[in-house]
């Protein structure tokens, strides 16, 4: 993974656009635990404005305020923010590997492993949202792309929903899996982060560092830049397609192979060699 900066607009600075270049206009809504109505109204609106100012909006127009019961007020605020968006400082996780077709991926796996790649997938913890992981794994796939089950050189073990971490580790060992794909959709109280950390810790414990399978986690609300914090190799978010994942797995395995072999030179080209020959 490389954390690249937005090449598209090197050095360019932009601002939000309402109806004129540079006007900086944004819309915001939020609730404050303050009462509204009668004598309270001005304080409530002033509080909303204070928050908007602290966020860098000036002027900030409180265009709507509504009491929600005796203790809360909902606000809509429009205004101009003065922050600049520096496009050359945008942090993104860019795809640092070539996107392969199923055919290319199969070829690469055969060359790399001389056997099928084994992938274990699951929704861990109490999460039962399987649609996302199934979109990646099942033949049916996602967005017109077939899932990993369609790849001849990939053997998929889909454990389904609400799999506990010990079950997952045991099955991974039993299947001698090359990669583990887990999905986390529920994010309330940071459930996805807690479960992912628990999982990666368990794998660190169960495997010597060099043999650990590639750990991949996905779900709509992940921040792709958090791999180090979560102890996983790669994170995929909203809109991921099976080919993104298959290509990454080929890349990751090539990289490991390469390291094991102690071969010199940049890993990337090695993988590309394998993949594209």
């Amino acid at each position, binding site marked *: 993974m490389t954390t690249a900066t937005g090449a598209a607009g090197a050095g360019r600075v932009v601002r939000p*656009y*309402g*109806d*004129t*270049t540079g006007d900086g*206009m944004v*819309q915001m*809504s939020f609730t404050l635990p303050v009462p509204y109505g009668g004598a309270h109204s001005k304080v409530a609106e002033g509080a909303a404005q204070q928050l908007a100012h602290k966020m860098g909006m000036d002027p900030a*127009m*409180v*265009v*709507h305020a*509504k009491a929600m019961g005796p203790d809360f007020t909902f606000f*809509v605020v*429009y205004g101009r923010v003065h922050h600049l968006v520096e496009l050359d400082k945008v942090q993104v996780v860019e795809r640092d590997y070539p996107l392969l077709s199923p055919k290319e991926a199969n070829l690469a796996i055969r060359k790399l492993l001389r056997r099928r790649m084994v992938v274990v997938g699951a929704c861990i913890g109490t999460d039962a949202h399987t649609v996302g992981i199934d979109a990646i794994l099942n033949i049916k796939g996602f967005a017109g792309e077939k899932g990993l089950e369609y790849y001849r050189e990939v053997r998929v073990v889909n454990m389904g929903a609400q799999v506990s971490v010990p079950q997952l580790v045991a099955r991974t060992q039993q299947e001698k899996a090359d990669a583990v794909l887990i999905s986390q959709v529920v994010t309330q109280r940071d459930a996805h982060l807690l479960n992912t950390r628990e999982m990666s810790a368990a794998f660190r414990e169960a495997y010597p560092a060099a043999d650990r399978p590639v750990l991949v986690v996905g779900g709509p609300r992940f921040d792709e830049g958090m791999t180090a914090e979560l102890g996983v190799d790669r994170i995929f978010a909203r809109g991921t397609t099976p080919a993104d994942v298959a290509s990454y797995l080929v890349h990751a395995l090539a990289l490991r192979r390469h390291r094991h072999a102690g071969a010199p030179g940049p890993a990337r080209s090695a993988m590309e060699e394998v993949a594209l020959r």
Partner: protein
Amino acid sequence: MSKTGHMKLMLDQAAVRRARALSARVGEPIVRLAQEHTTVSVERATLRLGGITGADPEGTPWVNRLLDVVRADVGLEHGVSLPVWHALLRGEAEDLTTLAQKAAAGSVRFQVPEGREATRARTAARKQVGAGLRRIAARRRERERLVKRWGDPEQKPWIYLIVATGDIYEDMPQAQAAAREGADIIAVIRSTGQSLLDYVPEGPTREGFAGTYATQENFRLMRAALDETSREVGRYIRLTNYASGLCMPEIATLAGLERLDMMLNDSMYGILFRDINPVRTFVDQRFSRQVHARAGIVINTGEDNYLTTADAMDAAHTVTVSQLLNEHFAKEAGLADWQLGLGHAFEIDPDVPDSFRLELAHAMLARQLFPDAPLKWMPPTRHMTGDVFRGYLLNAFFNLAGAMTDQGILLVGMMTEAVVTPWLSDRDLALQNVRYVLNAAGGLHEDFRPPPDGFIAQRANQVLSESLELLEQILDHERGLLDAIADGTFGLMRRPADGGRGLEGVAERSPTYFNPASELLEAP
């Protein structure tokens, strides 16, 4: 064509006939008034048809400079054409613009020719002004060709969007973006001050407040931009502006010359909402509509505005009466049914029980009263608040009512109505809203069959009968419509016939009054 054809006709047909007869009686004296007067703007429009262009270094159009001198020399009551073409024939200048420059410099004096000189001046004026009208006719044919080439919108209603940055160079890309996202019609709204200017600004402009100046060059630029996008999207995108305010006749003329497709043009809006003198307005109105008739331009009337100041339930019948009068005046001026974008709006207080069904009743009343007119359906404005979520919801129901009642032109509402002039994203979200509604529920009219004695039909007939009463009351006034307007009948605005702006620009026509444009436009 009507999708609502299978809906049982709800209206009392005797009442419908009577409504039209009463409207004709209300309208007649107003038409006579218009025929008996001229205005500075009618005369300037005539000169513009004759080919005058440009402005002096301060920005005052040459046509204004010329008119002012002519008026100072011989008055307005004879029209400017006799003195002006007389001067040209005398060799004072080779064209109108040069004549204006010389007149402004004080080197030409004007007089009203008589006898043979008058006849020659008339002939020359007719020829030159006739050429102007022929240019307008040519632009109309061009439109017809392009519509054939690029096609009309696929769906009904047509989707109408506003741009309003104040800067023609920001407006153009925003209009193009809106067209790509699905707009069929783009309206460039005008800067707040323009309607009270007694001249038409010149050139491209970047300085409007909450709208962009209507100038010939801005018209040209935007029409060209939309031609480009029409070609790209394979759909003829229509352009709308405002023939309204003190320069209504001139703007109508410029619109015809620059192939604009629709114009806001209401018989009473300027009186009520800009405090323009009623006589001035009615005279200017008639001329501008005659030009629109020639240009094949669809007019949009402004009944929606009444409901921003008066209550949409209490004043529902004033909308109907105004539509009937707008129809009468439009047809008298030569416009065909397909050119009548009669206005009405979704402005009932959303807290009124059954508000949506009442909106349907009002919308169906208009639909059935004017079955061949492409009604212009305006979104909620008055009851929009800073709660943009609620605004988005109201706009959806507005869109639905439009689809269910077969409106011709849907002016797309913005969730930020109560906050700002539309943002780029507001238009995009609004178009998504329309697209969802039309795609998901556009066919609902097939299943919508209000019972003939039900809530909706009852409300429609009630508004119709209140309209008849109001028309009768108007006829009871000594000076008919003029007195009714003075009374606050429409939009709660009181506008006496001798008040308002621009009265100084009106003159009663003298027996020798001559205007080649009027002459040619009156001819069927």
